[in-house]
């Protein structure tokens, strides 16, 4: 059973526990820091690769304003000429921040989109990552002939059933990214 308490042994045991635990944590942190950074970098890389045409070379991150907020974009070049841009774009969804990677080609079309992080409701807004009816429409979305807003607001984007707020946030994120690329071209 537990030892009898006195001031010395209480102080010693508490201090020892904290020291040992801090040491363990420090070690585990040191060991996992590299894999964590790598995992995060891979998620980002996969998202960029998904929204740019195949076989392009991806540049380092370049800072840019997207929708008035600080963000970044990556240039995809082929044979030395930029063919598409991958823009990180964040808007307010239903549950919180919704961050997308949006690929826009140099001739001003949306190439593809990918969700980096979201906090939407499972089964409702969270479908923006998985519902093929919603995600497929972004592939090659032609901003020349279609309007970037949901059908309810007079645009050409099919919203997710019962998740208008998420669909609007998603569309706005794409629009902000698109505007940002247009701003670059000037």
């Amino acid at each position, binding site marked *: 059973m537990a030892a009898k308490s006195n001031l010395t042994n209480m102080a010693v045991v508490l201090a020892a526990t904290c020291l040992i635990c801090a040491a363990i944590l420090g070690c585990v942190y040191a060991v996992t820091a590299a894999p964590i950074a790598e995992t995060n970098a891979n998620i980002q890389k996969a998202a960029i690769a998904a929204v740019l045409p195949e076989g392009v070379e991806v540049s380092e991150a370049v800072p840019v304003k997207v*929708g*008035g*907020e600080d963000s970044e974009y990556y240039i995809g070049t082929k044979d030395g000429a930029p063919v598409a841009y991958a823009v990180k774009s*964040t*808007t*307010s*969804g239903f549950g*919180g*921040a919704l961050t997308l990677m949006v690929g826009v080609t140099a001739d001003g079309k949306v190439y593809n989109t990918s969700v980096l992080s979201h906090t939407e409701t499972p089964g409702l807004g969270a479908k923006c990552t998985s519902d093929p009816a919603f995600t497929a429409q972004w592939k090659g979305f032609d901003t020349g002939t279609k309007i970037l807003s949901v059908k309810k607001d007079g645009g050409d984007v099919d919203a997710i059933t019962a998740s208008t707020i998420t669909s609007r946030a998603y569309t706005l994120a794409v629009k902000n990214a698109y505007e940002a690329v247009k701003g670059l071209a000037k």
Partner: protein
Amino acid sequence: MMEILLIIVSAIFVNNVVLAQFLGICPFLGVSKKTSTAAGMSAAVCFVITLATLVTYLLNKYLLLPTGIFKVDLTFLQTILFILVIAALVQMVEIVLKKSAPSLYQALGIYLPLITTNCAVLGVAINVVTKQFTFGGAPHMLGLGDAVIYAFATSLGYGLAMILFSGLREHLELNDVPKDFKGLPIALITVGILAMAFMGFSGIA
């Protein structure tokens, strides 16, 4: 001003801490048999959540973040530091109340030790420093003032859910419930219906 109002409405009704975020369920089910104890627990939780969020927010900003005094990223110590701070804070509140406000201590005293393991306290403290909130505008981290208001409003939401539920439970006691439903099962089903009612608020913010 508008944002503060949105924070308050959102934290109390739309994202109610118990009925939408599932934090602090154990005491919610445990001490809600009578309205008077439910009110006492709510008051104690309110006090501790607000204080704990204030303290952990400052510690996180000045000790753990790379922008703090150590200039290194220590956020992996968040969980361990926060729970220790909360445990110590609860003890301190207990001692201070006992000395300075004995009548308040008599009312809240028995609930205080239970609060250390109330995950609403740790949950709110962690959410406030790690999540981006929107409240109608662009996503952003909360400032100190907003964080404390958010914590206080969240605890009011806790109190609201707790007192509503204890009222329902007092009535349930008087009803003839089928044997296998007696006690917790019927209570859980009642909370389910209460949560459904709170879902109606989700259009507001």
